[in-house]
């Protein structure tokens, strides 16, 4: 295994980790502030990707496509919060899981109805396509590097928003004691809608950014959703810092496991057996990671009981 390949894989892992963070941040905010498990978060990711693909197809502009993704996902999030989610805050987790599972069915089939079953394609903008040479002579796709940068910038912005702004103070207060902040005269209903729309917009952005690398199709959100759940459970539900660290851990484990485990096994096994054992273990690795973390810290790395 060459160093160059390894560095490339680390970058790939970072890229998928950063995108996972965008998903996980919304999920963990929504859980932290409203105490809600939102399975339909993957649908918002899908809506972002479809909106981006549709607008890019019509106008040819990637920037407009991103704006459309953010707007469509935020609007869908706000709408769903007002119509459905609002009624679920004081229900138990089972009802939340089922109602948002129902939303997945509605969103997925609705999207299939509008756009058809065939995948759409969203092209990487011309200015960002092609590889770039990194120090050390490593060729790496520029677009993926930009995604890492955008993701990290959004993460920094989110931390600033939570730590430094008035909205952030309200969000943190909402996590700590929601009756108290309602009593202090903050419109808790509006705050909830806002947090939900913010989480949805982050998911939509991730969908649009990833949509340019993969194909945009119905059902694209669910695998990412499950990974994002793994991320927030590892990081501790409700913790943004945990979501960031969990996302990077999961992204790196997933990517590096797929490359390194077969190599590792082939050092003491027959090559074909090593490949199959290695790749089956690699696809299970993040779940093993999650089970391991939960065994030692049942509320995740940064979670509070």
């Amino acid at each position, binding site marked *: 295994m060459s160093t160059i390949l390894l560095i490339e894989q680390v970058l790939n892992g970072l890229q998928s980790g950063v995108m996972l963070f965008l998903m996980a941040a919304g999920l963990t905010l929504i*859980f932290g502030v409203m105490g809600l*498990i939102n399975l339909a978060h993957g649908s918002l990711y899908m809506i972002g990707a479809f909106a981006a693909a549709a607008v890019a197809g019509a106008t040819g502009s990637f920037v407009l496509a991103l704006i459309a993704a953010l707007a469509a996902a935020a609007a869908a999030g706000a709408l769903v919060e007002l119509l*459905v989610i609002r*009624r679920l805050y004081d229900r138990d*987790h*089972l*009802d939340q*899981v*089922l*109602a948002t*599972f*129902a*939303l*997945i*069915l*509605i969103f*997925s*089939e*609705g999207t*299939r*109805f509008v756009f058809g079953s065939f995948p759409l394609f969203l092209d990487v903008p011309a200015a960002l396509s092609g590889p770039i040479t990194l120090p050390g002579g490593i060729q790496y796709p520029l677009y993926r590097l930009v995604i890492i940068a955008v993701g990290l910038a959004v993460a920094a912005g989110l931390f600033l928003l939570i730590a430094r702004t008035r909205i952030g103070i309200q969000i943190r207060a909402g996590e700590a004691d929601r009756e108290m902040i309602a009593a202090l005269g903050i419109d808790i209903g509006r705050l909830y809608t806002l947090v939900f729309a913010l989480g949805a917009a982050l998911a939509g952005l991730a969908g649009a950014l990833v949509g340019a690398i993969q194909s945009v199709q119905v059902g694209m959100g*669910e695998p990412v959703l*499950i990974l994002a*759940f*793994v991320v927030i*459970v590892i990081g501790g*539900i409700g913790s943004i810092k945990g979501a960031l660290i969990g996302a990077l851990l999961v992204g790196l484990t997933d990517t590096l496991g797929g490359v390194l485990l077969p190599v590792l096994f082939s050092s003491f096994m027959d090559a074909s057996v090593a490949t*199959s054992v290695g*790749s*089956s273990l*690699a*696809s*299970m690795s993040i*779940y*093993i990671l*999650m*089970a391991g973390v*939960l*065994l030692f810290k*049942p*509320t*995740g790395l940064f979670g509070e009981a």
Partner: protein
Amino acid sequence: MRREALLNLVLFALLPATALIALALDEPFIITLATKAAILAVAGVGLNIALGLGGLVSFGHAAFFGLGGYAMGILASHAQSYVPLMESPFLIEGTKSMLVIWCVAIVTSALAALAIGALSLRTTGVYFIMITLAFGQMLYYFAISWPAYGGEDGLSIYVRNGFPGLNTLDPIQFFAITFCVLALVLFGAGRLARSPFGLALSATRQNAVRVETVGLAPYRLRLVAFVISGAVTGLAGALFADLNRFVSPTMFSWQTSGEIMVFVILGGVGRLFGPVAGAALFILLEHVLGGLSDYWHVYLGVLLLLVVLFARGGMIGTLAGREVAHD
């Protein structure tokens, strides 16, 4: 309780009645649908032991459903290729006998439930939902990437497995087998709910601290419930694989866990016949709405949403009246 008991009787009679009418009208496909409903009901009864009695929201029951399915698939595929499953240290041959396959499916899924439950039950609430989901996904990806038994493509079994004295390829005879299994499982689950163990388990769901103060161990009660629940769902998985004569990793997918949970809720969680009502309704909707529109999942989603938001006792709860609590 009388209205619910009457309703249960009607529901219970509905499946064989449908199958017999279909037999008279020479509609084997309807018999197959009734068989599928009976099998899914067995899976639902299994989940309901954990979910309804124990209050354990397991989002990973597809793990047991799939293990049961693969127990059937692996044993039958070895029997049809005449290659023994294992030669050393002792010889294990494949089999085409349903009874043997059921035992293997039950034991395998019970052991898996013991391992998964022992780890998962250390957590509670959302973490429990997520860790059971993770274990299900773990097995799903394992089934996809393990090439020995078909990997992503799954395994086809050419001839349905045998049951002494019956021709299992005849739809109505296979329906009779599955319906008897359902009846036995329902009887067992009903007895379980009223047994001292079932009462202690219900009490644990309602208030674990009090149960602990009277000297019972909630963790052990929940673990036993989880194992029984997993074993029953595994049995349903073996039957389901036999119905389709096909197993694939889809049986392990989280959508399968979701669907089993959906029809338990549609029927009425914690009610003995809830899964039967839910499974029958689910198959009916799939068949009727699926015939009307390719996008029938939208209607299923809307219906589920309405049930969760407005009809909290599920179908049986709505029909039998709100005053009849499920415990």
